């Protein structure tokens, strides 16, 4: 099967998925204590609605965003609020967090199944909002907002992102393999909310078993209703799962710079998000558990774990047998776009798709040299930008003049820096350029 793909750029990093792709999702026992940051989404931080020493049940609302863009946050365990204070955060360095001591005697909360088909689209959307669901691919954009496009947008297609193009990560792969019916049902919930009929799930061809499982589940679920769910194999190429590239691969539509997917009639959702939507619609279960890949050659036992939001990395590392002496870097997310974290006190958040414990042979921590104009970054850039020029402008103190290179279309996929023989930090230069253009007005 020839895969669908995007028109230009992209790279083929070593996948390293063999470390975890054959390991079934395993439920990690809840930790003694969870640290739940009030900011795990795009938008304003949530305001805590609990106080110190207050008892909370698993699934209770503990922080909300009233007016601004944001998402509700729930307790992932039953226990007592120990404190609310600034704690380490995977992407924001530090952030206020609600620390809850778990009551070891409390049984896990049980949710009653319901038939989502008997509820209206509006009620389903409210459930998504109440469940605190955000885009789980990494950006954490509140899902209920994404599912309410302006009336002027003529959305006709739902795209499901099963590309999982980042090396190492295998969470969406395992979810599609182990819960294909849930993903298909979640897709239909999404279609009902959006009031459209057609969804397409894009999966990279390196996940043949997931393609088979999803195709079978989609086939079995067809004909029951007006919704059609198609599965499309895609070429294995990073960044196949990037929103604009994915939309092009699956629909041949180009989202123009500064535009959003609904401008070309498409809404994109992530596989993990769809599973969370399924659970919200059929169980009323809020989002406080997360499947994440823990991999890399510096963790004793790589695994795909279902963990409570707020579990700190030291608890996960201990559960997986600890780290090796060769641990060089800890990365929250994938190795191409993830963030390095400085210690193991960082909690798992809603948007953690994985945590990598990289050994010295897996990651590059050397210095960088001058640009030799080999042009490989221009070939690699999926947006057709000129990373080398942006970097040279920033180095020369002219970062504010880089808008002509389309720097705001850069979504920091890292293809340019990945191929750079001088090991230049081109993504960081692009970030500086964006800041300097904005500052300059």
């Amino acid at each position, binding site marked *: 099967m020839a895969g669908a793909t995007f028109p230009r750029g992209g790279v083929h990093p070593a996948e390293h998925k063999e470390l975890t792709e054959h390991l079934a999702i395993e439920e990690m026992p809840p930790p003694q204590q969870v640290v739940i940051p009030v900011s795990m989404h795009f938008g304003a931080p949530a305001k805590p609605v609990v106080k110190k020493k207050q008892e909370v049940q698993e699934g209770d609302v503990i922080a909300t965003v009233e007016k601004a863009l944001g998402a509700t946050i729930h307790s992932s365990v039953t226990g007592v609020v120990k404190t609310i204070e600034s704690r380490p955060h995977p992407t924001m360095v530090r952030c206020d967090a609600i620390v809850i001591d778990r009551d070891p005697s409390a049984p896990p909360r049980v949710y009653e199944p319901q038939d989502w088909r008997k509820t209206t689209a509006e009620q389903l959307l409210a459930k998504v909002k109440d469940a605190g669901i955000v885009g789980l691919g990494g950006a954490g954009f509140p899902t209920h907002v994404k599912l309410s496009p302006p009336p002027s947008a003529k959305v006709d297609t739902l795209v499901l992102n099963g590309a999982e193009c980042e090396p190492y990560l295998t969470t969406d792969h395992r979810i599609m393999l182990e819960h294909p019916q849930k993903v298909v049902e979640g897709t239909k919930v999404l279609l009902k909310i959006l009031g459209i009929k057609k969804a397409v799930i894009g999966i990279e061809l390196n996940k043949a078993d997931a393609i088979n499982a999803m195709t079978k589940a989609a086939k079995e679920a067809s004909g029951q209703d007006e919704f059609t769910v198609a599965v499309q194999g895609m070429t294995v190429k990073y960044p196949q799962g990037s929103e604009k590239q994915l939309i092009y691969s699956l629909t041949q539509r180009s989202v*123009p*710079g*500064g535009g959003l997917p609904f401008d070309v009639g498409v809404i994109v959702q992530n596989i993990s998000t769809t599973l969370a939507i399924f659970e919200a619609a059929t169980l009323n279960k809020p989002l406080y558990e997360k499947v994440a890949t823990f991999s890399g050659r510096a963790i004793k036992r790589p695994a795909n774990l279902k963990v409570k939001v707020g579990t700190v990395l030291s608890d996960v590392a201990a559960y997986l047998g600890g780290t090796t002496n060769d641990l060089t870097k800890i990365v929250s997310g994938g190795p191409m776009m993830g963030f*390095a974290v400085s210690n193991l006190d960082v909690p798992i958040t809603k948007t953690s798709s994985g945590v990598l414990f990289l050994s010295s042979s897996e990651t*590059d921590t050397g210095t960088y040299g001058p640009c030799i104009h080999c042009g490989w970054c*221009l070939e690699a850039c999926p*947006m057709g930008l000129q990373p*080398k020029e942006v970097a040279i402008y920033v180095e020369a103190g002219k970062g504010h003049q880089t808008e002509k290179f389309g720097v705001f279309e850069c979504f920091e996929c890292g293809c340019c820096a990945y191929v750079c023989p001088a*090991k230049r930090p081109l993504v960081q230069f692009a970030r500086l350029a964006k800041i300097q253009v904005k500052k300059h007005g």
Partner: protein
Amino acid sequence: MSPHIRLGRTTAGIMWTVIATLMPVLLLSIYVFGFRSLIITLVSVISCVVVEAISQKALGRPVSVTDGSAVLTGILMAFVIPPGVPYWLPLIGAVAAIFINKELMGGLGFNVWNPALVGRALLTASFPVYMTAAWIPPIDWSQSPLGVYLGGGVDAVSTATPLYVLRHYGLAALLEKFGDLSVIYKNFAIGLRPGCIGETSSLLLLAGGVFLMIRGIITWHIPVSTIATVAVLSWIFGGETWFTGNPLVHVLSGGLMLGAFYMCTDYVTSPTLKSGQIVFGMGVGLLTVLIRLKGGYPEGVCYAILLMNCLTPALDEWFKPKRFAPPKPAPVAAVK
């Protein structure tokens, strides 16, 4: 800092790979012209490395001679110098190539002109006698005394390059001096002809170029457009009447193969985009033939490349990557 994984290729790796592909050329040159080739190349390499280290120290930059770029410049500069020159000559070229052309312009990546060719151009302007007359015929192993092989008696055996003969006396004289066309093709392909130290072996240079293409270090765009342009133009204009020139003699002579595969493809001084590279190669080919047929020098590759280097920033400005989906231009009404 993301990305946390990187491709294995490095600047130094690229430079040392290119250097490795030039070693067979150097060995053949020692066989053809004697140990003079090796000595001049060594002087050139050491001069370039020392000048780079001193320049970087003086300019307060980190010393980066291990990245191989100065070594490569040294080898390439020696390769475009006649084998009969005095041994100290490359030292002067190194100052021009490395200190003036590279370090004073900002170091690696910021030079406008190919460093090795700047060195050669300065030497040609300053020492025209050495640079245009110090040619040595290939050593005949069965006839030559060991002294010749070790580098003595240069004046006694100085000769003329094929392009010089072709330019001033015509194809008939070339055939008389170097043998039938079939002999010329064979000897010129192997490298058994007078010429600069590293330019004579078309086959080894071609093999090195192909290897670099397979490794993804260079692409076909510049070498093919350069060589094809020289071949077509020398066929059209290179003879007594139109369309009677001999393209193969032109392609196998002078420094075209070395220039096309190793000088034109210098990342820093050539356009970045494939489309710009093809125009660049065609420009080099055109200027080379123009200088060879109409200019004052019998050979034009060096100046052709240096002139096209001047156009590289413009070509990079004219040829830009195609954007995936740029912002839609604002409607005219909105602009007003």
